[in-house]
């Protein structure tokens, strides 16, 4: 294949990626956009085997590695529960960052002392950011999978350790650029991995999606930088597109959650660790039976259901729809109040409810549902906590302060379906649970809802 034809097809793939991102930003064209992107990526992968000047020395090994990647990646993506999807995205992002760092390391080893300063700088950038993205993504995965605490991890002198690591990374980077040695590069990579861990540890669980989005943008930039080292235009275009759009997306997400990006990343340094002692004192709450809940619902005019991650975990989306259908058939006005970050990520809850075929017109965004709460008789909070926690408005300094919430306290009655008194993902006590108009129904969301449905049928 001639060089010109190869480059022309590379340009075609770049256009595919631009169309893909464009398509993904509108609901109508989103799925097609993703397919265009996948098509472009496939073309590029086939194409690279026909790159002029390639040796084909290791073609069997490379094809085997691609096949192995497909065998690992596709079933993981197909079988994953929709509830666990955010951590899978984090993990995919992490391995992408790791791949970019490895590519830069190999190219650096090969260039040796023939590397130009610009190449070395680009390599250093790729290795640092790729390593940060990799280790940071692994920590976000562990947090989302709840394999480690979802609270911000802050240790004494933490900020000095982080600053020290960063200085170490930059210092070794200078060393690499000056000496062109292999050992400094590996030390720099190790320090960058450590920095990735330290950088994500202090981030609270609720802010993790923003960090994933940021690391995603980082990985895009590393791909662009490795494209510079390899003189591959396609990598530069694709990586930069992801880096730029990812940065915008991160800002949009932070805005949707009412957080400043700076506050998210560095808030844990300035905030004092939350006192966990409050959990020790036992305060009275009003808990009710499924029958009590059914009676409240049955005599309501308007019911708003606030779904949260607990609903997703219990796989209760189908049962909640059954209950909503039952209430609608009794002439009760039912709507779902969807917080932008209900679930684990913006839009996550919409995906889950769409899976249960909840009619779109019943899904009401936060801005539209908030003014209707004073006219709402009953709010049923299913496995949500932080998104209705008034502390976001009343307690400056708490991790979710400033996040827009659903004003469920304005409604006549609030029913919480919860597994326990355990605080939500952000790890903050919810005062609303102790309010006089609040009723708690403890148990697995699906079992509780099933009981409520049968109680409703008997009324």
């Amino acid at each position, binding site marked *: 294949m001639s060089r010109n034809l190869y480059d022309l097809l590379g340009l075609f793939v770049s256009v595919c*990626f631009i169309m893909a*991102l464009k398509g993904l930003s509108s609901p109508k064209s*989103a799925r097609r956009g993703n397919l265009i992107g996948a098509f472009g990526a496939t073309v590029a992968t086939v194409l690279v085997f026909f790159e002029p000047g390639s040796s084909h*020395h290791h073609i069997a090994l490379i094809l085997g590695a691609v096949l192995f990647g*497909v065998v690992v990646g596709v079933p993981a993506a197909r079988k994953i529960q929709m509830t666990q999807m955010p951590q899978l*995205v984090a993990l995919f992002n992490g391995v992408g960052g790791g791949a970019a760092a490895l590519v830069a390391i190999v190219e650096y080893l090969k260039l040796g002392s023939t590397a130009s300063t610009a190449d070395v700088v680009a390599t250093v950038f790729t290795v640092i950011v790729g390593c940060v993205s990799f280790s940071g993504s692994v920590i976000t995965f562990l947090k989302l999978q709840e394999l480690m605490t979802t609270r911000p991890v802050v240790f004494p002198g933490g900020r000095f350790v982080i600053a020290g690591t960063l200085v170490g990374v930059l210092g070794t980077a200078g060393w690499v650029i000056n000496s062109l040695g292999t050992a400094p590069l590996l030390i720099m990579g190790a320090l960058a991995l450590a920095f990735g861990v330290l950088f994500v540890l202090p981030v609270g669980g609720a802010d993790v999606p923003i960090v994933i989005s940021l690391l995603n943008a980082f990985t*895009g930039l590393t791909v662009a930088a490795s494209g510079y080292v*390899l003189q591959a235009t396609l990598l530069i275009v694709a990586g930069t*597109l992801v880096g730029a759009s990812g940065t915008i*997306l991160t800002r949009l997400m932070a805005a949707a959650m009412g957080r400043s990006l700076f506050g998210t990343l560095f808030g844990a340094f300035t905030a004092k660790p939350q006192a966990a002692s409050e959990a020790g004192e036992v305060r009275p709450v009003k808990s009710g039976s499924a029958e009590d809940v059914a009676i409240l619902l049955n005599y309501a005019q308007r019911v708003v259901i606030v779904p949260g991650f607990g609903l997703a975990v219990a796989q209760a989306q189908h049962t909640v729809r059954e209950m909503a259908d039952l209430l609608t058939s009794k002439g009760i006005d039912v709507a779902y109040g969807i917080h932008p970050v209900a679930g684990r990520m913006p839009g996550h809850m919409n995906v889950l409810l769409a899976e249960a075929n909840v009619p779109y017109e019943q899904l009401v965004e936060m801005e539209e549902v908030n003014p209707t709460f004073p006219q709402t008789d009953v709010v049923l909070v299913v496995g949500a906590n932080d998104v209705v926690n008034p502390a976001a408005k009343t307690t400056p300094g708490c991790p979710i302060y400033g996040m827009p919430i659903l004003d469920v306290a304005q409604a006549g009655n609030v029913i919480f379906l919860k597994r326990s008194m355990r605080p939500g993902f952000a790890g903050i006590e919810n005062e609303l649970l102790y309010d006089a108009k609040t009723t708690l129904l403890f148990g697995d969301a699906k079992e509780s809802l099933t009981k409520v449905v049968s109680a409703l049928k008997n009324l």
Partner: protein
Amino acid sequence: MSNGLALLSIFVLSVFIGFEVVSKVSTTLHTPLMSGANAIHGIILVGAITVADRAANNLQLILAIIAVVLATINMVGGFVVTDRMLEMFKGKPRAAKSEAGDSK
């Protein structure tokens, strides 16, 4: 224009395109868009294959092959999981009911 400068121009122009294409997107699509962008940077697979092809010794080859595996997981898995998310949004709510059985 030198080659380095040409690459820099491509980089800067791509930044503006990247900003432009996603400047208006509803919160509902944030997650799929992030996931789709995530799949796109799996294109590092092309770079991984290139360096594997040119590997001069076994160490370079091993590292490059690991990169190929990781990049493939990122790219293929990323597109598949994004498609699964977007599958949920397809069609009008009424139509979605009858199609749900087929998609499983």
